[in-house]
């Protein structure tokens, strides 16, 4: 087993190989992982849509029938989820063989793969950070009652679930087909 000899190999997308994830879930690991990732993806979007539907169907309490809701789910709340979904799409559109360094293409293709991997992860992290920002600035700082801060928490959990879904999908798809294969991103 021969490693690339220099400390910088231009054909590799990432310098540090990931530690070999020895997750042995049997031969159905890939199938189960993809199913779980899809379920988490749907769950994430339904959690947020739950908040959006609750917000649009908000009714005033019976003892004060002319109250109006202090806050609604607006387009600002949708932006982090859209960013995370875009990032997940970008990350998963990259050819896995290219990233693993098996397919020795020209260095420009590797450079492009590296760039788009960075952009995708930046979109996902930006979505997560943006959801926390919306939660704090729009809901927590203004001291809304609990039924309204739920919108913000739903937003955060949407983005966390999207990120988990991307991670599970990545592990499921790029796991070792042989047991002595080194998983490297």
């Amino acid at each position, binding site marked *: 087993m021969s490693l690339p000899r220099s400390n910088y190999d231009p054909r590799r997308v990432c310098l540090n190989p990931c530690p070999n994830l020895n997750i042995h879930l049997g031969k159905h690991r*890939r*199938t189960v992982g*993809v199913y779980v990732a*899809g*379920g988490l993806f*749907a769950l994430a979007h*339904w959690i947020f849509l739950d908040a959006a*539907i*609750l917000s649009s*169907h908000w009714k005033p309490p019976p003892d004060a029938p002319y109250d109006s809701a202090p806050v609604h789910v607006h387009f600002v709340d949708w932006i982090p989820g859209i960013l995370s979904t875009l990032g997940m799409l970008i990350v998963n559109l990259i050819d896995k063989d290219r990233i693993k360094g098996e397919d020795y293409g020209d260095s420009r293709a590797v450079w492009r793969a590296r760039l788009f991997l960075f952009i995708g992860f930046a979109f996902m992290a930006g979505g997560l950070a943006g959801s926390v920002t919306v939660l704090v600035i729009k809901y927590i700082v203004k001291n809304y009652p609990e039924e309204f801060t739920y919108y913000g928490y739903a937003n955060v959990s949407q983005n966390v679930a999207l990120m988990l879904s991307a991670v599970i999908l990545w592990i499921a798809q790029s796991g070792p087909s042989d047991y002595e294969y080194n998983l490297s991103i």
Partner: protein
Amino acid sequence: MAAGLKTVILLSFVLAVGFLLIILSCALWSNWLPLLVALTFVVAPLPNALFSHCGSDDFSTENEGSGPVDLGRFITSLIVVTGFALPLILAHAEVIKPAACIMSIIGGGLVYGTILAYTAAFKQDTEEF
């Protein structure tokens, strides 16, 4: 062949009960939104059926997935989770009653289980030849 016939009759019975539950959950409260659950679960096996022919050729082993097959599985589990989440969310927002939510979930599970069981039974039958 008699067992196969019995299986088909039993499965069609379960399918009918599932659709009955879904339609009852709509009709009893005259709110026809839970009918979307039936549509969702009927569509659910479609991506796997479409994409399962894309990736596998004769040289690849069965469990080694490829991109299109993975996409099909991803969309399938997305649709299945949607089918279970939709009535829950409608009930949470008080658009439908909780009883209608439970009935449509059970009905949807029966419909999807019927489709899965039918696929499995059919596959076993073809392998026997």
